[in-house]
């Protein structure tokens, strides 16, 4: 014990770090800021530290080469003791980190912490969020599988839409004319050297500012931030009701970080590592590429935007979003901090969260994509086959064979790209069905060239029976007599 003390004293005489560390640890924070709401920043830091450790562990085995990366990931999963667990920790760590950073940001926003004099802290925080997302994307590329390969293709396609420099930008990102060895190597450099270096530097600056300017006080309705008076008021608050950060604040940070780490370890243990999915071989085209969880909303957005808006939205949207977040503390640097007095702020957070959540949810089952194997995999519902004529049954076969099912569902099975056809006969008459099938329209391809007259007749006679029992078929008011005849003849079957 005495020896340790002596070594400590010896070191401190030379390093002289004891005093500044004590000052940092015991710096005064407002009593109410030592709160459970203020633990997300430190939790993000903890997960970041874990990411560095597990990242270094992975780099002991991982090979950043397009020809070897996938095999080295398989080796990590199956050939190295607990390699799968380190991969799982790193992968789930990435998800946790993005989630915690977003929660941290929302909390800081709702507590008005971005206001004077903490504008720069917010700006650096925004930069750190972008870097975190950059880590998430580049990490997904390093997991060099089919999703990574086609994800890069999507990134390149987006970049290529930039006016004038698009084609050059693609080559700069890919490191060559195609997605290959150079592409993986440069994303490796980004993921392992460039972005982590910037993260470490800017996290330090972020923390330095939190110490220098002081942690945000607990917002109170009616306590208005004014540039002239704020600093004095904050100092008075510290004098009147300040407590040393250690131990008043830090115990909550420590306990929350421990809970997060435990949760992360449990997720990693029970859910395992992410992929890799199939080999990154571009000649294997039976694949449905999807981005990682936190980019799913973009995937959905790209399917749902009107085509003409897509390029402007892709190129201008991020600039506007980042500019809005960056300008926030300068536009709203003063005034109320409490969320109850800032209804638009609260509504914005709710709206953004709901929008992102809804897009993410939709991307989970991507109703806009044809279901590639529905035509050969999903059976025709019994009630549309039993007691039907030979022509109608032939039509049912044509319906499957021509991949109609890939976009149109029957009895809830099949694609959701086009409308479900369980009751199409109540909406379209025979003539309208023929027109729609042959000429397409309303985002449906025209099948005129690929259906013989016999197939068309069969298909349409099948489509005219697609209605619930008892529901009347659609009819053309200008030919009421005809329609009545059809009703009688088809209702006779039920």
């Amino acid at each position: 014990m005495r020896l340790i003390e002596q070594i400590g004293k010896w070191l401190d005489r030379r390093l002289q770090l004891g005093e500044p560390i004590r000052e940092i640890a015991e710096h005064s924070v407002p009593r109410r800021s030592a709160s459970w709401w203020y633990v997300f920043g430190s939790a993000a830091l903890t997960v970041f530290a874990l990411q560095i450790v597990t990242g270094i562990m992975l780099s002991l085995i991982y090979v950043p080469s397009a020809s070897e990366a996938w095999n080295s990931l398989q080796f990590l999963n199956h050939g190295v003791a607990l390699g799968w667990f380190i991969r799982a920790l790193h992968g789930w760590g990435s998800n946790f980190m993005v989630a915690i950073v977003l929660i941290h940001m929302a909390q800081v926003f709702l507590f008005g912490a971005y206001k004077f004099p903490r504008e720069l802290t917010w700006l650096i925080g925004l930069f750190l969020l972008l870097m975190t997302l950059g880590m998430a994307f580049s990490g997904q590329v390093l997991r060099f599988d089919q999703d990574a390969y086609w994800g890069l293709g999507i990134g390149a396609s987006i970049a290529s839409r930039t006016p004038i420099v698009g084609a050059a930008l693609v080559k700069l990102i890919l490191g060559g004319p195609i997605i290959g060895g150079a592409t993986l190597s440069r994303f490796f450099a980004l993921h392992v050297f460039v972005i982590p270096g910037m993260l470490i530097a800017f996290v330090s600056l972020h923390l330095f500012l939190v110490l220098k300017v002081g942690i945000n006080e607990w917002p109170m309705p009616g306590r208005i931030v004014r540039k002239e008076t704020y600093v004095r008021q904050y100092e008075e608050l510290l004098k009147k009701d300040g407590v040393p950060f250690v131990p008043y604040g830090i115990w909550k940070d420590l306990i929350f970080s421990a809970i997060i780490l435990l949760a992360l370890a449990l997720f990693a243990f029970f859910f395992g590592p992410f992929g890799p999915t199939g080999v990154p071989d571009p000649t294997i085209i039976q694949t449905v590429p999807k981005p990682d969880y936190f980019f799913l909303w973009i995937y959905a957005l790209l399917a749902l935007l009107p085509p003409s808006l897509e390029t402007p939205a892709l190129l201008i949207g991020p600039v506007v979003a980042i500019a809005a977040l960056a300008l926030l503390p300068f536009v709203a640097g003063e005034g109320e901090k409490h969320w109850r007095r800032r209804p638009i702020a609260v509504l914005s957070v709710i709206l953004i969260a709901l929008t992102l959540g809804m897009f993410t949810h939709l991307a989970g089952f991507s109703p806009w994509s044809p279901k590639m194997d529905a035509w050969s995999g999903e059976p025709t519902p019994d009630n549309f086959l039993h007691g039907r004529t030979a022509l109608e049954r032939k039509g049912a076969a044509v319906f499957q064979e021509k991949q109609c099912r890939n976009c149109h569902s029957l009895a809830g099975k099949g694609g959701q790209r086009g409308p479900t056809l369980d009751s199409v006969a109540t909406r379209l008459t025979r003539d309208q069905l023929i027109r729609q099938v042959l000429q397409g329209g309303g985002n449906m391809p025209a099948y005129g060239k690929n259906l013989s007259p016999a197939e068309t007749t069969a298909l349409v006679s099948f489509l005219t029976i697609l209605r619930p029992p008892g529901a009347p078929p659609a009819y053309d008011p200008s030919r009421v007599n005809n329609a009545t005849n059809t009703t009688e003849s088809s209702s006779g079957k039920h």
Partner: protein
Amino acid sequence: MATRTQNTNPPTTTPAQNTISRRSVLMKLGILLNGLIAIVLTIPIIRYLFSAVTRERKNGYLSWISLGSITQFPEGETRLATFRNPDVTPTDGQTADTSCWVRHVSGDQFQVFAINCAHLGCPVRWFSQSGLFMCPCHGGVYYEDGSRAAGPPERGLFTYPCKVENGLVQIQAGELPTPGSPSARNLERKYPCA
């Protein structure tokens, strides 16, 4: 040098003003030298960084590649063909292999489509029964001649320039087809290349 000057001229023995002005000139000289060297070194670094872009201007990435004998592609059908990118680096592995859709229209007439959807580059699949290409990502659909049928793409499939020589189907390829690449500009040719 600077250290020695400091040793021989202790600040106490010389007029402070002179020393400061001479030292500040030397310091500025040092900054200037470093600045010049930095600029000189930046040029090769930028040249290196942009080599993938600048190389294109010199040699280009495109060259003619054979997809195989004309007999491999029955008339009236669309078949998947694979080829190895003409420009390969040592670590490319399987990523240098690429697929494309070859449509043998009739006789010597062919159309060769990129596998990449014109929307965002996902691999499109051919459905011969309905005569459509469908994309699994965002629902782009194309007709058998590559023109847009439905979904988010604003245009038809990318097509490679192609020709038939000595009974071999050849295409000019070498770049990932994106809206900015050469194969994207070829689409405007409506007629199949012979």
